[in-house]
């Protein structure tokens, strides 16, 4: 009985969705067609390409690559929901050739040059610093100042931090005041998540060292998980491609790297510098130590790239699916309508998978960090146990 009702419900939604998209898309396309020679250009302009970042695509030049990378990248300003013509200005903080400058990003929008004191700033339209704030020197060349601006991604970091705090602190204070009374509702749900990570991942791997490293590992997990999910929300305050940005993953991986090595045991360092291998592998030529030291640095590199690449990949797929509509738009209304329906179905599918991926990538990053830290926590006796295994086999 229930499954039939569910089926009918889903059918209704699908039919409604298809009907609405059929109705809207040709209207948009016609509107665009009357406004410009190229359907692609104006509809893309109004839907996807933002107009506020100082560069607009040339008429008739529909470039999906630029659109994709602009959405993946950072920016001085955050798109107003459902309106890509306007951007919320964000503070720009730079240390130029003559000191600190703080001004709103609206001053340099649309390619404007802003003069603050004796120095001129603008957002580079091409060259090495394309899309970044540059200082215009007196001889017309540009140079990049120290840029501490609160960009879209920086603001997204702040939002993520606040959300993580809101997820964790209430539960902490609940347990400080209520003792053994189990938390219910949202707090209880989150506790199940923390318990899953803490008990079955951190405690299972680090054993009695778990309490020492768990605060960091749990924080990393929550930060990545929340920012992954926020990245899937398409409008402000979501939509920033935070974990798909190499700077963010690099910082997290470096913290794991430093924790691994600063808290490493004597045994860990001995294994790197003087490993338990035949002498010729380490004495005149330190082959093994070199490999081990190289391995120290490949771990954070792997952490950085895998999270960054995975999350960026998910975003690229969803944006590409959106762009399919505008690519097909050049072929007429029928092709565009069909492409819209297909693209929407695939986008919903991809976004649902991305929700799963958000959790999996956060979990994997935490798991790898836990394993790297636990490898540096080995003691002599544990190693002897490992040595005995091949002997008995």
């Amino acid at each position, binding site marked *: 009985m229930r499954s039939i009702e569910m089926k009918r419900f889903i059918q209704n939604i699908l039919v409604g969705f298809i009907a609405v998209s059929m109705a809207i898309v040709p209207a948009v396309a016609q509107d665009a067609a009357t406004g410009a020679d190229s359907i692609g250009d104006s509809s893309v302009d109004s839907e996807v390409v933002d107009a506020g970042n100082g560069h607009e695509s040339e008429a008739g030049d529909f470039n999906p690559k630029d659109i994709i990378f602009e959405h993946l990248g950072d920016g001085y300003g955050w798109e107003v929901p459902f309106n890509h013509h306007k951007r919320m200005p964000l503070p720009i903080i730079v240390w130029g050739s003559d000191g600190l400058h703080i001004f709103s990003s609206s001053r340099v929008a649309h390619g404007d040059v802003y003069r603050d004191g004796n120095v001129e700033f603008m957002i580079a339209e091409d060259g090495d610093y*394309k899309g970044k704030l540059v200082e215009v020197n007196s001889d017309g060349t540009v140079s990049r100042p120290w840029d501490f601006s609160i960009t879209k*991604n920086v603001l997204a970091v702040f939002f993520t931090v606040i959300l993580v705090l809101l997820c*964790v602190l209430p539960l902490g204070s609940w347990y400080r005041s209520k003792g053994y009374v189990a938390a219910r509702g949202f707090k209880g749900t989150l*506790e199940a998540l923390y318990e899953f990570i803490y*008990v079955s991942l951190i405690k299972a791997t680090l054993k009695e060292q778990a309490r020492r490293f768990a*605060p960091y590992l749990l*924080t990393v997990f929550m930060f990545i998980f929340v920012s992954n999910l926020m990245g899937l929300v398409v409008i402000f305050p979501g939509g920033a491609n935070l974990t798909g940005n*190499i700077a963010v993953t690099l910082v997290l991986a470096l913290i794991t790297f430093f924790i691994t090595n600063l808290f490493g045991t004597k045994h860990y360092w001995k294994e790197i510098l003087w490993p338990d291998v035949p002498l010729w592998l380490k004495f005149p030529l330190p082959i093994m130590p070199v490999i081990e030291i190289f391995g120290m640095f490949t771990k954070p590199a792997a952490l950085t790239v895998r999270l960054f690449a995975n999350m*960026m990949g998910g975003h690229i797929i969803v944006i590409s699916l959106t762009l399919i509509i505008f690519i097909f738009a050049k072929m007429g209304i029928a092709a565009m309508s069909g492409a819209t329906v297909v693209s929407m179905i695939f986008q919903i599918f991809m976004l649902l998978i991305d929700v799963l991926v958000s959790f999996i990538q956060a979990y994997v990053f935490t798991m790898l960090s836990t394993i790297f830290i636990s490898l540096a926590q080995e003691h002599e006796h544990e190693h002897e146990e490992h040595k005995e295994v091949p002997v008995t086999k």
Partner: protein
Amino acid sequence: MELFKPDFGLVFWMFVAFAILFLLLWKKGWPAIMDMIDKRADLIDKGVEYAQQAKDQLDKAQESAEQIIADARRSQADILREAAHMKDQIVEQARQEARDAAQKEIESARVAIAQERKEAEKNFRDQVSSFALDIASKVTRSQLLADAAQTKLVNNLLDEIEKTN
């Protein structure tokens, strides 16, 4: 490519924000939650252990109660048997005593009877001899003068009679 060049500003802010987040959660968030997760797991483990122990104890108590009841039954049977035995003994003893007393009575009666009889016999003999004397004297008074020798003769004859009896 721009995407692969980490931006200095973002690295800086990311580090600062993450450090603040970590410090806050390290001091205020995670310890309470981890404590509670650990403690609750402990509590549940202990509760299970306690329940197991309680069940074991209950089983043991039931067993010992059954043991006690069985013991009581056995000793009850013992006591009953003992009592029956004692009753028999007492009755037997009483009977024995009664029998002994009766025996004694009979014995003394027999002695008394024997004595009576002897006396009676003696009396009888004396009477018979006196009767005989009377008779003989009456007989011989008329016939015989000397009587001493004749009395002796008669006594001898009477002894003989007794012997034949």
